[in-house]
């Protein structure tokens, strides 16, 4: 990521490639549990905004942790930015270097802030990377400006709202200049306005700063603005397409415990009652257009 210039979004070049990735956790006595991820093959392009959906326990968060090398796969390979990070020849330094490129923001805003002053928290990442102090200063200021939290730089994080805390957590990642950020349900604990604040920042980072975004969420309305939606079910990649095509498969999503946006749901339910309407609709306006046309047709 470039903090100072605005790069162009190029979405045709692979950034992350997973090939036949399998993963299982170990129990306390060292035996492997059931496979959490089964033979996942997936390519995320540079600059893409990808939403990841799946029910609790489907393997979404495990997938996220593999991308950041917090976990390593049992088999299969992961290539990030042309470098095979699963290769046994990779040195620890190279692993750390790759981690810097893929940042992660977690669900609970209280679990990821470490310092007692906002700007010190944002500086924590770059400090650990051994960046010179003057450069850290510049990065922290710029990162706080990007998330709109400059005026809070000397505040204590503990007195901020949930949405503001998440913005600080995001600034802390930005200050490490990542190419890609994985957001693991970053809005699950926030109120509606906090959710909107955080979503606006995520979209801005993707659109204006060219950051590749993987956004894990249970909120279907957050997923409709993504370039692509990936659905994980019981450790397998079960859908991978545009939001419109994924959400129009209402019955399939229901069968794996997921929702669709309420407007899509409404059109689907009407369809079940014999009113024929297309269901590949995601926005309020599109849905209203269709309904009005149908009502007028009947007149």
């Amino acid at each position, binding site marked *: 990521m470039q903090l100072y210039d605005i790069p162009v979004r190029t979405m045709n070049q692979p950034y992350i490639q997973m090939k036949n990735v399998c993963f299982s956790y170990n129990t306390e006595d060292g035996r492997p549990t059931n496979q959490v991820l089964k033979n996942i093959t997936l390519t995320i392009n540079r600059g893409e905004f990808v939403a990841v959906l*799946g*029910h*609790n*326990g489907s393997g979404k968060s495990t997938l996220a942790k593999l991308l950041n090398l917090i976990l390593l796969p049992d088999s299969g390979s992961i290539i990030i930015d042309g470098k095979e990070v699963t290769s046994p020849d990779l040195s620890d330094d190279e692993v750390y270097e790759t981690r810097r490129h893929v940042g992660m923001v977690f*669900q609970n805003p209280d679990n990821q802030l470490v310092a007692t002053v906002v700007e010190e928290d944002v500086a924590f990442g770059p400090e650990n990377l051994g960046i010179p102090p003057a450069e850290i200063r510049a990065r922290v200021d710029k990162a706080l400006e990007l998330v709109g939290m400059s005026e809070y730089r000397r505040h204590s994080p503990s*007195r901020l*709202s*949930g*949405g503001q805390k998440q913005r600080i957590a995001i600034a802390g990642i930005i200050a490490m200049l990542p190419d890609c950020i994985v957001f693991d*349900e970053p809005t*699950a*604990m*926030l*109120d*509606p*306005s*906090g*959710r909107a604040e955080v979503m606006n920042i995520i979209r801005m980072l993707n659109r204006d700063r060219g950051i590749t975004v993987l956004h894990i969420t*249970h909120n279907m*309305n957050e997923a409709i603005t993504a370039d692509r939606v990936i659905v994980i079910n019981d450790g397998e990649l079960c859908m991978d397409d545009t939001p419109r095509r994924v959400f129009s498969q209402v019955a399939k999503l229901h069968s794996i*415990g*997921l*929702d669709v*946006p*309420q*407007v899509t*749901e*409404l059109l689907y*339910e*009407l369809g079940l*009652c014999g*009113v024929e309407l297309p269901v590949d609709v995601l926005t*309020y*306006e599109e*849905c*209203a257009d269709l*309904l*009005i046309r*149908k*009502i007028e047709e*009947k*007149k």
Partner: protein
Amino acid sequence: MNQENSNSAGTVELRGVSYIYGRGTPFEKKAIDNINLTFEPGCITGLIGHTGSGKSTLVQLLNGLLKPDEGRILVDGVDIWDEPKKQNKLRFKVGLVFQYPEYQLFEETVRRDIAYGPSNMKLSGEEIERRVVESAKFCGLDEELLDKSPFELSGGQRRRAAIAGVIAMEPRVLILDEPTAGLDPMGREDILGGMRSYQRARNSTVIIVSHSMEDMARYSDRIVVMKNGRVEASGGRTEVFSRSDMLIGAGLDVPQITRLWEILKGRGIELPDDVFTVERACEVLLDLLRTDLQTVKGR
């Protein structure tokens, strides 16, 4: 016992209640500001408000975890602070499920964890067992899970076990602070549906704190909107959810269906006001399309 089971039991009244955090320190904050409010049995009240609006403080006041600085809280006409030594009796009457309650499980088996509350109520072994099984059922927890360790369960199952532990005390007033945060759509429906059945079976008073307007549109009868420590609005679903500007001004949102409804009305379609859920919207639209269909046929 007869008195406890009578239909009138379970009324909670707040009269001029205020609560101040950090009194006398530079961080002094009036979290609850002169609230007058009554919660009655026989309905589910949704408590909504932005982060920091005072929702969690309010629920802690209701079961006596915090003592109001001003005003009185009456449960079935008795001031809960009249006899502080009898507070544990109050806690049997007013059950509170905290946010992320799954972190509070501690027993060796799920059965013993759920039984912990009722065991402290001097009940017979049989009665305790009956309550454990029944409350597990309300929470959608399979009986075969009862003999497992809480740590063998998934996050969603642990959440249900924790809620069952409070329900097993058969409180007249059940308060749940964001019971569905972080759960997938199916988990949310299971838990809220279970709380609806519990409320109906016991005719108890249920209060649910939530950030999801869609969930509250579907599962609550009354809504209380909090803003900056005060009650911004309270009333039936229709009354509250039809005031979009007020909700947005309180840092909240309107249910997705309400958005669609406003667009349709704005474009001149005549529609009833009491529509906030997909089910109801579907009914209304079907009626509309069918009537028109019949007119066409009649010609």
